[in-house]
């Protein structure tokens, strides 16, 4: 069972997400990054509420992005348009395992307890490790600032990734 202390955090996450959902729809019309709207929104967005996360991609690249306390790691990937193939296919509804991420030991130990439903989906994840979780279920906390999460390899990624015709 997850500790009941997780509830207020999740409530905040829900509130933040709803806010983000609204801004995302405006952003789509304006073709500007969603970060922009967050930056112009109320006090909650002051820099001390920002948490920096480093994602190590399948190719070994480091993508660094920021999110707000209470945002899920899926939110961070979405809001920052991070280029991770196939991430978050079911959009955070615990119906797939495409947002699987691997955590550092010291962070993993402090994460909220995992639910059976998340474990069930992790069972189907590729490259499962002892410190795997689903990014949609992990909400940012101040203590996670500068944490490093790794995107697991998939079968296809054993091969070298190819981008044709892309400007470097």
């Amino acid at each position, binding site marked *: 069972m997850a500790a009941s202390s997780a509830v207020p955090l999740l409530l905040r996450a829900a509130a933040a*997400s709803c806010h983000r*959902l609204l801004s995302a729809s405006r952003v789509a019309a304006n073709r500007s990054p969603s970060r922009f709207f967050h930056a112009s929104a109320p006090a909650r967005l002051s820099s001390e509420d920002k948490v920096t996360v480093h994602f190590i991609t399948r190719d070994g690249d480091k993508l660094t992005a920021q999110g707000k306390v209470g945002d899920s790691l899926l939110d961070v990937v979405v809001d920052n348009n991070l280029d991770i*193939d196939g991430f978050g296919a079911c959009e955070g509804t615990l119906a797939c395992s495409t947002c699987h991420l691997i955590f550092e030991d010291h962070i993993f130990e402090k994460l909220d307890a995992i639910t059976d439903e998340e474990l069930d989906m992790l069972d189907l994840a590729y490259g499962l490790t002892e410190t795997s979780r689903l990014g949609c279920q992990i909400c940012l906390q101040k203590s996670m600032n500068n944490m490093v999460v790794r995107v697991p390899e998939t079968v296809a990624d054993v091969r070298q990734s190819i981008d044709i015709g892309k400007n470097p």
Partner: protein
Amino acid sequence: MVSGFRFSCAALRMGRGGGILCWKRASAFRFLVSSGSPTGIKRLLSTDELGPRICIVGSGPAGFYTAQHLLKHHRLAEVDIYEKLPVPFGLVRFGVAPDHPEVKNVINTFTQTARSDRCSYYGNVTVGKDITVKELQKAYHAVILSYGAEDNRTLGIPGEDLAGVYTARAFVGWYNGLPENRDLKPDLSSETAVILGHGNVALDVARILLSPLEILRKTDITEDSLAVLARSKVKRVRLIGRRGPLQAAFTIKELREMINLPSVRPLLDPADFKGLGDAIRDVPRPRRRLTELMVKTALEEPGEEVAGRWASASREWSLKFLRSPLEVLPATDGKRARAIRMAVTRLEGSGETAKAVPTGEVEDVLCGLILSSIGYRSLPVDPAVPFDSKQGIIPNSSGRVLGAPGLYCSGWVKRGPVGVIITTMNDSFDTAQSVLEDLQSGALDVSKAKGGFELVRSVLKSRGICPVSFSDWEKIDAAEMARGKLGGKPREKIVDPQEMLQLIGR
């Protein structure tokens, strides 16, 4: 319950405002759509630079994930997706159970792909009939077959054709509004239903048969199916498998759903699960956790609340192991199924590869409704394409069709009809990767311009075929959602292709 809250929190985020907001959310994180050059300019540029023209046969998850990967990793590739039905998304629309709307969120990303200015959708075109694969190969540099598994394996036993016996595939197609199954109208007057098979489709069918109507009513299940289910007499569903609990093919999420289904009680025979604890100590985690859940449900006393819920349940389901179907026995009228005769089996070997062999003992199970859920099956699409009819797949290496340069395959027709959405996603990325490698190495010759859809259009026109575009589909989509809204559900599917075509002015 925190877990419950997480679900509802996600549902709130995704469900609010229906399709438009959902799609816009998806658009915020899908980088597929090109960097903002107006439509048209891209096409001009690409004819200058000779981008590869690729077509995909089938618009299910395999087709769309393959397209997504190609478009994303090749700046000039143009991808056309052909679909037999007027409407896209294959098994996401016609296979995923109506009470699993979360899985259907993948449609938001597929829609994003289809709206890319380098991607086109052509529905209502049956490859192999309206146009051959050879003709497609003339029009495109590469042809990718992602048409899935449209048939099912058959039992091959006497009585299989009696009234009351259905394939799970047809039953699923029926409740999901698949045009070819819209007139199935299954007879649900039997109190006992037997489902042959222990996979996720078997559990989907069991769940639809047993779920309280008020749950189904809020889904996109078809109105006709709902009316038939409302009159259903089915009270107990027996899921029967040839092998044992350690060989069950369903996944834990689906099993847990069955165990937690409101007004329904699981009946697991403790004898089937005693002593399994030792056997699973060293098996991979998914198998271990799945077995643990069955063992717990079968052997442990439920808590007070659960026990009360199960005691007052009006319907039930059970798992029966080590039984192989021999014959469907007719009622006295000779037309209807009355029972199914099963061979009792034992396992030879152990683990995933254990084989069921008959012991010689036979057992009859009385039931008027039998659904066989023993697997889907791919069919050959065109004599020009190699096909391994034993395995039911197109022989391939990482998606490259063997002995057929320029031909590729992805999804179920590539690896067989198993796996969840992430399996098909990875598999499709794998095939797309092969195409990209072949483009880079020159194995795929793109030096000559190809006619693409312009060429296909003239062929189709001469045969009286008029394709359905993605914007046509969006009109059908909007009409379905509007009809659903009237009935308090997310969507009311149109099940008649003629009606779909009329709706878009054909």
